[in-house]
């Protein structure tokens, strides 16, 4: 492990899920099918950086995060954590690593055991990892709670989840991740279950943690949140990153037609700022049958409008899978037209 290597480096990551074919299917020899949940994803994340994986449901953003954390096994690609290849580590060897990468779940109402007091919930990971003496554990629990913005900690230690507001619950959930002093936080839709008025405080907390040096991989469907809080955005479509770059570059100068369409359908706060949404027909295709060529071409406005044909590129869009390549400095897109 070297201090110079990025916190997380993912290369060509590929994760498939088998589609159950049932007894009849197996006997009748129906071919085995797989869902290409993650299909060649590469990105890196530095310490003190927040990367947002943005996309619609089923695009593979959660599977990407689960694979990175080795909760799901990839079929190809490499995952390097602090420079060490962890792609094929056995579960026993993963254990010390798990401490260093922690997950924050979407629903703080589900993530906490209703019978555990805050003290027990936050201490639990320390017990699982056999860390610290009793007094050390108490100190670490208090420190984690205060770092998560629940100060003074002794006001909260003996409460049950039902005695906390939604924002406080999510802070407790974050404290249970912080108590292990991880280097990487994966936050899967950390605010989507919370009321609008408390979302900002949780996002600001994540931002402070990022400033203190944690690497944060945030999974979200909300481009506005990503634009405001992440350093970089990676837009996923059907198991691939189709565009990646600095958050403001991606939002202000989107280079992939999918990103462009997504941006037009994000509702703006200002009623005067009513743009005509570019509504894509239908929904993303099934990851079992990924379209040939560019996987976005069946829904691509550039192909449908004939602009791709006018530029003599339609054949490539239909037959040639575009690679994610640098369009301008640190701004990547996987589109033949970009």
């Amino acid at each position: 492990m070297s201090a110079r290597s990025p916190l997380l480096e993912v290369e060509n990551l590929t994760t498939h899920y088998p589609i159950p074919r049932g007894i009849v299917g197996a006997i009748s020899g129906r071919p085995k099918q797989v869902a290409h949940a993650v299909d060649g994803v590469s990105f890196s994340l530095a310490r003190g950086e927040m990367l947002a994986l943005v996309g619609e449901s089923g695009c593979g953003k959660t599977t990407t995060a689960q694979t990175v954390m080795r909760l799901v096994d990839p079929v190809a690609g490499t995952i390097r954590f602090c420079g060490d290849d962890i792609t094929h580590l056995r579960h026993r060897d993963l254990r010390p690593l798990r401490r260093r990468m922690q997950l924050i779940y979407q629903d703080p109402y589900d993530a906490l055991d209703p019978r555990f007091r805050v003290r027990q919930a936050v201490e639990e990971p320390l017990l699982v990892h056999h860390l610290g003496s009793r007094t050390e554990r108490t100190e670490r629990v208090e420190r984690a709670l205060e770092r998560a913005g629940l100060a003074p900690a002794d006001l909260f230690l003996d409460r049950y989840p039902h005695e906390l507001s939604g924002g406080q619950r999510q802070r407790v959930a974050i404290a249970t991740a912080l108590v292990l002093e991880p280097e990487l936080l994966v936050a899967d839709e950390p605010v989507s279950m919370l009321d609008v008025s408390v979302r900002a405080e949780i996002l600001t907390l994540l931002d402070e943690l990022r400033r203190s040096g944690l690497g944060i991989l945030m999974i979200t469907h909300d481009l506005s949140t990503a634009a405001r809080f992440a350093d970089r955005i990676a837009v996923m479509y059907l198991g691939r990153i189709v565009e990646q770059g600095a958050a403001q570059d991606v939002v202000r100068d989107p280079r992939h037609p999918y990103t462009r369409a997504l941006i037009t359908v994000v509702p703006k706060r200002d009623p005067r700022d009513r743009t005509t949404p570019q509504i894509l027909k239908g929904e993303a295709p099934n990851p079992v049958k990924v379209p040939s060529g560019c996987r976005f071409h069946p829904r691509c406005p550039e192909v449908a409008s004939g602009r791709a044909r006018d530029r003599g590129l339609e054949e490539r869009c239909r037959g040639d899978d575009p690679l994610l390549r640098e369009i301008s400095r640190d701004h990547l897109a996987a589109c033949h037209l970009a």
Partner: protein
Amino acid sequence: MSGALLQVEDLNVWFELEGRPELHAVQGIDFDLSQGERLGLVGESGCGKTTAILAVMGLLPPTASVAGRVRLDGDDIFEDGEDSIRPHRWRDIAMVFQGAMNAFNPVRRIVDQIVEPMELHEIAEGKAARRQAGDLLELVGISAQQATRYPHEFSGGMRQRAAIAMALACNPRVLLADEPTTALDVMIQAQVLELLGRLTEELGLALVLVTHDLPVVAQTCDRAAVMYAGKIVESGTTDDLYHSPRHPYTRLLFSATPDLYGEGDVISIPGTPPRLDREVTGCSFAPRCDVAFGPCSSVTPESLSVAPGHQARCHLNDPTMRRAS
């Protein structure tokens, strides 16, 4: 006001809770709606927005007591309780429930589930009803050939559109939609909002869009009412609410919502809403308000007209209060 299709006046809802004081969930709200109009009813969880529209539909459980008037074309449909509501429910006023897309009966075909309310309300039956159901599905962008499919064969977005088609089965004039896009992806959300907009324009349907999502209302509705702790604290055009809010809650709610190109800080509102099973003295938002002053903690603010078509419940708009403090 007389031109309004739907008028809700001084609507109150109390819930009887076993062994506990009653909970005053909706505290005297008023709104009106004309044909083809889109009104947003905005607020956070627990503010009473869903309870309010369930009350309008007459669909609250027996533990709820409801008071107030709901006028349809000027006639009070609450006058004789359930007896006077029933003829209008679904036929004049229909609702898309929150999570309706997941509430289809999984073992019955979509078409049968849309035909059922038609037959029940004697709108149409048999072949004619099935033809109408097909037309409704076409209207919401689902081909009539798919009408005989089962719910699981539809994607989430299609099921939500089918749920809207089902609410339209008896040709209502008012549609109350409770968080119709909340569980949907942005692209599907855009499809559903476009559909709701088209229905108001083409059929003259009046829409109440109930949601916690201010940008959705800003982009979809002409007017909006912001609810907090059971009351409408501000109402007006969406343009007024964004550009010249007259209640601090409205202003803070907008600043708590990140915007795609938004500059500046996104701030949260400290504190939590008050409990509704206790009498609140003063303004219910005062403990969380960043500009609260003298009378806010003791005097309950009335709804004042601050500009034509723009009302707010805040002492800051009342010169006598400002002078007195």
